[in-house]
C-alpha cells in the first residue's frame, strides 16, 4: 500500500514522497520501514506519528490499517 512521507522522513527514504509497504498494523509498518530504510532509525528515536485515514496516532502501534486508506507518516509533535 502507498505510504506518504513528510518532512525529514523523506530524506531518510532517499527523497521519496511516497513508499510502497504492505502491513496490517502500525507496528508492522514501522518495522518494515526501518528494514527498508535504516536511516529511519534516527527518526524513530525522535518519534514518528502515523495518520491512518485522517486519524492521528502517536502511541498506539497495535492499530490495524484497513485496505485502501490514506497512510501518512509524520514527525511526532508535542505541545505546550
Amino acid at each position, binding site marked *: 500500500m502507498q505510504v506518504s512521507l513528510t*518532512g525529514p522522513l*523523506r530524506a531518510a527514504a532517499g527523497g521519496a514522497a511516497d513508499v510502497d509497504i504492505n502491513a496490517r498494523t502500525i507496528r508492522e509498518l514501522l518495522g518494515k520501514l526501518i528494514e527498508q530504510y535504516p536511516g529511519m532509525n534516527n527518526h524513530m528515536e*525522535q518519534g514518528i506519528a502515523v495518520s491512518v485515514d485522517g486519524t492521528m496516532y502517536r502511541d*498506539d502501534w497495535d492499530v490495524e490499517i484497513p485496505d485502501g486508506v490514506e497512510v501518512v507518516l*509524520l*514527525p511526532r509533535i*508535542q*505541545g*505546550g
Partner: protein
Amino acid sequence: MKHDQSYTDQDFKVIGSRVPRPDGVDKVTGRARYGADAYAPGQLTGLVLRSPHAHARIKKIDISKAEKLPGVKAVITAADLPDLTEGRRDLFDTLENCMARDRALYDGHAVAAVAAIDRNTAKQALKLIKVSYEKQPHVTDVDEAMKPDAPIVQPHIQQDGKPSNIAQRMEFGHGDVDEGLKEADVVIEKSYKTEQTHQGYIEPHACLASVSPDGTGDLWVTTQGHFQYRNVCASLLGMDVAKLKVTSSEIGGGFGGKTHVWIEPLALALSRKANRPVKMVMSREEVFKASGPTCSTSMDVRIGARKDGTITSAFIECRYMDGAFPGIWGMLGGMTAWACYDLKNVKSVGVDVLCNRPKVAAYRAPSAPMMAFGVESTLDLVAAEIGMDPIDLRLKNVAREGTRSSYGPTYGPIGIEATLQAVKNHPQMKKKLGKNQGRGMACGFWFNIGGQTCVDLNIGVDGTVSLTQGTVDVGGARASMAMIAAEELGIPYEDVKSNVGDTASLGHNDTTEGSRGTFSSGLATIFAARDAIQVLKERAAKMWDIPVEQVTWENGEARAVGAEHNNLPPLSLKEIAAKSPTTGGPIAGHNEVTADGAGVSFASHICDVEVDPETGRTEILRYTVVQDAGKAIHPDYVEGQMQGAAAQGIGWALNEEYIYGKDGLLQNPGFLDYRIPVCSDLPFIDTKILEIPNPNHPYGIRGVGETSIVPPLAAIGNAVSQAVGVRLDHVPMSPPRILKALDEQAA
C-alpha cells in the same frame, strides 16, 4: 484503539453546563498550595550560582570555602551529577542545561548550587564559591548565528563536516512552488522578524525535594507533568522510577514552560548530599534568564496568487532561535504554517539555529504563532494587491473536510471555514472605524495531541464518587472530569470529587500539554466510568439474583429488563454502593489508555486598534475570538482559554521581548521591563465557541487551550498596518518600532 472512541452525538445532562469548580474555594481563600507553599521539618534553602557571562569556558570551581561556612549542608557542581544518560543526547542536553559542565552557554546558566539552614546563609555561601571563567565570543541573534564566522555554541553539531549553529532544517509540503509561481498574476515577497518572549507564568518554578539514604525520594513541585518530571529526574540522578514519588502542587501557570525540569534535579541532588529536605524557589530574574522562553525568529514568505484569489504558490522559510540546545521548533512551525488552507503548491521550511540564550521550551502552540504572523500578514498584502476582501481571500482557499493538509494527512470534519464565516458575519466587522484606527483579522491552527493516560474511579459506600486523574489541572480539568464522570454514571455533578493523584497512585500519565488534558483524561474517565457501570450491573444482578445480561444502566440506576422482572424497582447507585461490602467489596472503575485520534482546532480572530501617531502606542479597542472546540464541556473554561491565549498573543504582538545587550546579557529580566498586558491594557475579549465534533471522541472533544495564541500576532499586525498606513513586519510592534516605521514612511 481498544475502546470505541467514535462520536455518539448524544444529548447531555451535565456536559455543557457551567458548574462551580472543585478547587475554587481553596483558591479564593488562600488555602490552595502551590510549589512554594510546602514546608518540611529540617528543610534547607537551596540557591543556584549562575554564570554572569553569555559564553565562557569553566576552568575551575572552588567550593571549599562555601562548604566550610557554618550552616551550609551541601554544595554541588556538575561533579555531583555524573553523566548517566547512556548516549541519549536529549537527556544529556537536559542535564547540561540544569547544571553547566565545562562551559557556560548563556547569561544565567547554572554552575553550582548550595543548600543551607536559611536564605541568608545560602546567599553568603554563593558568594564564597570561586569560579574561574575564560570568556568566549558569544552570539545572541538568529541571523548572526547562521553566518560562517559566528561563534559556535555546540561544537558537536555539524553541517558539511564543520561545526555549525544550524542544528536542523526541515521541509514540509507538496506540489511545486516554483511552477506555481508561473501561474500567478501577483507575487508578494516579504521578510519578518519576531523577538523572543516568555510564557510569563506568575508562579516561579519551585519545589521541595527530600531524598533518603535508601534511595527513595519525595518531590513536591509545580509542574505540568509530574510523571515526566519523575522519569527525567530518576534518570539523571540514577534513582528507580518507582522509588521517586512526585506530587504535583497546584500550578500557577505553565503554558508549556513547566514541561521541563530546571531546578528539580539540583534540589534532589542537594537533598541527597545533605540528607535533608531542600526547598528551591526561582526568583523572577532566574525565571527569565534560566527557564525556557520561546524562540525569536526571522522568516521569508512568498505567495503567488491569481486575480480571482486562488493561491498558486505558498512558500515560507522560518529560522527559529533555539537557545543553546537544539529542539524541534522548526519542525513544529513548518507543519502548522499553511494548515488553514487548501493549496496545490505549498512548501514550508523550518530551520533550528543555536545561540547563547537559554534552552527554549514549549510555549502554547509552540512555533505556530511566528509562522502564522508571516503567512497571515502576507495574505493581507496579497488581498490588497488584487483588491479582494481579506476574509474572502482566505475563504477562497480554505481547507475543508477532504482537503490534503499542508503537513500531510487529509482532513476529516474541521472548523476553519465555519470560524471564517462567523468572523465575516460578526457585528464587530460592521463597527465604523475612526481616525488612526484599523481592523485586522487572522487565522490559526493547532494539532492537539492525546497520549498516555490513567484514571481511577472509586465509589464510596455512600454512593459518592472519588475520581483520581493523572493529568495536572491547569485550567479546570478537575471540574470537567467530574462532569464527564457524572454524565456517564447518570448522577449529579455534586456527587463526584476529582483529584490529581501523585505518581505513586496511578500509572504513567503524559504531561498536560498539547491541549491534551480534557481530551485524554476525558476519554479515560468515560471508559473508567463504563468499567464501573459494568461492576454496578453485576452487583445489581447479584442483589436481584438474575443474570447480568438482564440488567441495564440508565440515569444513574440499574434496571431489570424483561417482562418477568417488571415488579423489580430500579436500584440507584447509592443503594448498590451501600450494599457493596457484602456483594463483593469496593466498587471501582479503572482505565489506562494511550489516547489517540485528537482533533485539530482552528480559530479566527478580529482585532480593532487605535494607534497614537505621536507616541506609537497601540490601544486594543475590540477583540473577538472565534474557535472550534469540538464540544465545550464547561463553556466558562473554554472561554477562559480563548481569552487567556489571546491576551498572551496581544502582549507578544505589542510589547513583550527579550532584550540582549552587546555583552550578551539579558537586560530586562523582570516584569517592569518585560511588559505583559495589565488589566488597563485590554478591553473585554468577546468569544464565540463553535462545535464541530471530533469524530474520534464520544463527546466530540477537541483540545482548545493552545490555538488562540496563534492568530493574534497577525491579527494585530494587520490592524496596526491598516491604522498607520504602513506594514509592520517586526514583532513586537512596540511604540519605538511603530514610530520608526512612520518616520521611514514620511522620509
